[in-house]
């Protein structure tokens, strides 16, 4: 599903964010990216949906070399990739329903599809009863569920999560992880960057550890360190 070949990425400030990385992730895998702040986890994720382009090396997503992708095709790549962030990125002026519907609306899905899929996904994340609330009326955990619902409503092949539990307390985090686990069980590949030792140690999934841009460990059923 995802293949990274000899990828190096550095920023103008001459820091090397990713050094000669080689990773292959199969369809349906659940992968944790761990490492200290600045070790390259976010860069890894941003490279996958082409928010960044590598200095060298090749990246394949769903069998396609995304380096060869022309600019106007990038949106279509992103339709296959859901994204969840630490800061949720919900639109404060839209209700829960509208926030999720927005993701379908802007890729041109018809009203009938929106009216069928949004309630179903809100049911999946357990927020049917809050669909007409605004984000600021929800708890952090609920907001992150909305954000997961928005990322998954289009049934993407891949879900990228950049520290999705970074702003949540441990109990709430467990809820979000259960949700991601359920999504993973539907066959969706999940790549999650995290600092949360407890989560990594409990879930026991594949762990890729980054240190100053280099992959120093790639372990199936791994632990945080």
């Amino acid at each position, binding site marked *: 599903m995802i293949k990274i070949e000899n990828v190096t990425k550095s920023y103008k400030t001459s820091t090397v964010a990713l050094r000669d990385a080689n990773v292959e992730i199969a369809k349906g895998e659940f992968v944790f990216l761990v490492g200290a702040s600045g070790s390259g986890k976010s860069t890894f994720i941003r490279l996958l949906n082409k928010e960044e382009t590598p200095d060298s090396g090749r990246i394949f997503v769903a069998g396609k070399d995304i380096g060869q992708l022309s600019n106007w095709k990038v*949106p279509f790549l992103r339709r296959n990739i859901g994204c969840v962030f630490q800061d949720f990125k919900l639109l404060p002026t839209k209700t829960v329903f509208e926030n999720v519907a927005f*993701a379908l609306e802007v*890729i*041109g899905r018809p009203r009938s599809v929106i009216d069928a899929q949004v309630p179903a996904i809100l049911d999946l994340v357990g927020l049917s009863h809050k669909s007409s609330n605004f984000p600021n009326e929800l708890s952090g955990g609920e907001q992150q569920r909305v954000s997961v619902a928005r990322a998954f409503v289009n049934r993407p092949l891949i879900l990228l999560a950049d520290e999705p539990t970074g702003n949540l307390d441990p109990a709430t985090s467990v809820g979000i992880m259960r949700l991601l686990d359920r999504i993973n069980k539907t066959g969706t590949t999940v790549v999650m960057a995290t600092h949360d030792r407890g989560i990594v140690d409990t879930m026991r999934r594949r762990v890729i550890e980054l240190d100053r841009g280099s992959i120093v460990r790639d372990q199936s059923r791994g632990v945080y360190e």
Partner: protein
Amino acid sequence: MKAEYYVRETASNLGRNITITLASVMTVAVSLALVGASLMLRSGVENATRRWQGGIEFVIFMQRDPSPEQVQSLRDDLEQSPEVASVRFVDKKEAYEEFKLLFADSPELVDSIEPETLPPSFRVEPVNKEVDAVEALGKTYASKSGVGQVVFASKTIRLIQQLSSRLTVGIFVIAAFLLGAAGLLILNTIRMAMFARRREIEVMKLVGATNWFIRVPFMLEGLVQGLIGAFLAIAALAAFKPFFQKWLPSSRDIPLVSGFQVSSGEMFFIFGTLGAVGILIGAIGAGIAVSRFLDV
């Protein structure tokens, strides 16, 4: 679905920054109204002094019914003269058409004239355009057989033409600056709308909205501002037209010149130009804003 989305987003963008939107619409309207007024002035003066366009310095009016031989002989004379740069023959029919146009502001006069009563004439452009030389040359034709009268372009006409062309240039320069300001205002209005929507834009990119889907509402916002501005300018000029023709001197005030008429065909052309310029300025402002500030 898409169209509905674009309309909704564009309307909400315009409404969100209503004050700066109004500022850019008004600037477009004022500058286009100036452009339109100067185009009207130019057509008016052109129509009023139509006989004297293109370097024509004097007109030889024949008697009412000259014989073909008289006309031919004078034509040969003029065409062979080394002092004549160009000459044009205006027959009765053409004279009548021109008369109708020149005196469109006094229909009772047009009605009282039959095509047969108008004499044919030669419009002459001399090589040497010094006043004395022109008069000397003109007078040599006054005594030819069949000639009724030789009429010279008066100083007043030259003055009016000069004044109007300078005025037109002056107004155009001012209007160009204002149009530039209008374009910058539109650009900034759109930039503000983008800033207000930066979260939406971020999410749109994230979930895979196409670049054009994100751009279109902002492009439309610029076009709508340009169009509304042009529409206001057109409405103002249409309302102002009757006064424009009343204020300017009529044929009774200046001899040999007729009223400052602007025909409806010319008005249509002027309005079309204003509409096109309005759309253009909106599109340019929006295009720059979208390409510079919308990083998709």
